[in-house]
């Protein structure tokens, strides 16, 4: 009788033992892989000035350019920290039911790094705060525009502006500039 035939039952018994031994680790590996499963990872690529429907509203990017000539609240020139450039994105919204009010807007570079609006580096500069809602004192209108300010390291250029709503993840709008 061969070794395999003599010990088949022992080998079979090893399976549940292995499952018990490795099961906990497998769960941890799976949990880690599933970490933040609702991150915005699937882009809806939209060129400059084109409207895109998302989350019950519509949005388009009108401008994405370096924000030069920033001033402080007293009108004095605002000095950026060394090694940093500021960028402004202007988005237009068509959102009569205010479905996009809770959206997040971010700037992406070519390497996929994600920059948040209204950074501390621009504290003291006279500028609006980025929001996906119309201004409180704005007259009712079919569309409204808001500016979003960012900073990036000097020598880095924006590749796109992202807009996402947690309820729409993993889909997000990727607004790409011309050129």
């Amino acid at each position, binding site marked *: 009788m061969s070794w395999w035939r003599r010990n088949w039952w022992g080998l079979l*018994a090893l399976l549940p033992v292995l499952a018990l031994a490795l099961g906990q680790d497998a769960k941890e590996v799976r949990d880690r892989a599933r970490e933040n499963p609702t991150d915005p990872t699937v882009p809806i690529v939209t060129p400059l000035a084109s409207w895109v429907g998302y989350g019950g509203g519509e949005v388009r990017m009108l401008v994405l350019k370096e924000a030069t000539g920033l001033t402080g609240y007293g009108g004095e020139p605002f000095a950026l*920290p060394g090694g*940093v450039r500021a960028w402004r994105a202007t988005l237009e919204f068509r959102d009569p039911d205010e479905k996009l009010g809770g959206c997040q807007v971010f700037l992406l570079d070519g390497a996929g*790094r*994600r920059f948040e609006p209204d950074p*501390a*580096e621009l504290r003291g500069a006279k500028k609006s705060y980025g929001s996906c809602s119309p201004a409180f004192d704005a007259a009712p209108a079919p569309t409204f525009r808001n500016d979003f300010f960012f900073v*990036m390291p000097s020598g880095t250029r924006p590749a796109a502006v992202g807009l996402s709503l947690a309820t729409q993840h993993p889909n997000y709008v990727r607004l790409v500039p011309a050129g």
Partner: protein
Amino acid sequence: MIEPRTHRAPRGRFVEGLASLGSLAGAGLLILVALAVGSLIPASDENIEHRQRPYAVQGGVGDARSTDKLDIRVAGVRGAGKIKDDDRTHDTGGVWIIVKVRVATRTEAGLIPYAAARDRHGRIYELSSRIEQSLNGRMLQPGIPLTGELVFEVPKDAATDLTVLFADNSLDRRMDRQVEIALPTVDKATVDRWLADAATTLIDTEVSTA
């Protein structure tokens, strides 16, 4: 001359049954021994936190080190018995340890998730909440390093030998990467000199991109 062929009488069924039973019992015993030894392995290391401790990325002052989210370089350290931030002086029953650090996020904007100091006994000291700290709660943009100071308040006996820790998660750092920067050791006389110094040490409450 022809050798007579050896001849063995066939084993009886009883003997064969005994051998088979013995083999079965031996295999079962081996499994039991394996299970017993296996159960002893985790028992030999009673501290599960130790077994699941973070993976240390060690370095010293001036070394560039990284977690998944942060690039970090500790530039220097000083100690004091009395510090002053913007407008208030802060005394201590221990020692203030002020660590100058240059830090940047790698891929996305975020805060420093976890920074702490560990003494030679393994005791952990988190950033002091008694003063406003420029880097604590500061949103870092990727690739834009900021230099600022982190302030810890530690017992006198801990101040001689500290390691500063950085990690990507403030709550769960199990089996995750952790940067561990060993600060230069100082003798007790140096700590006493810090405490005896009547001058108040000014804390840098601003960060810089320099």
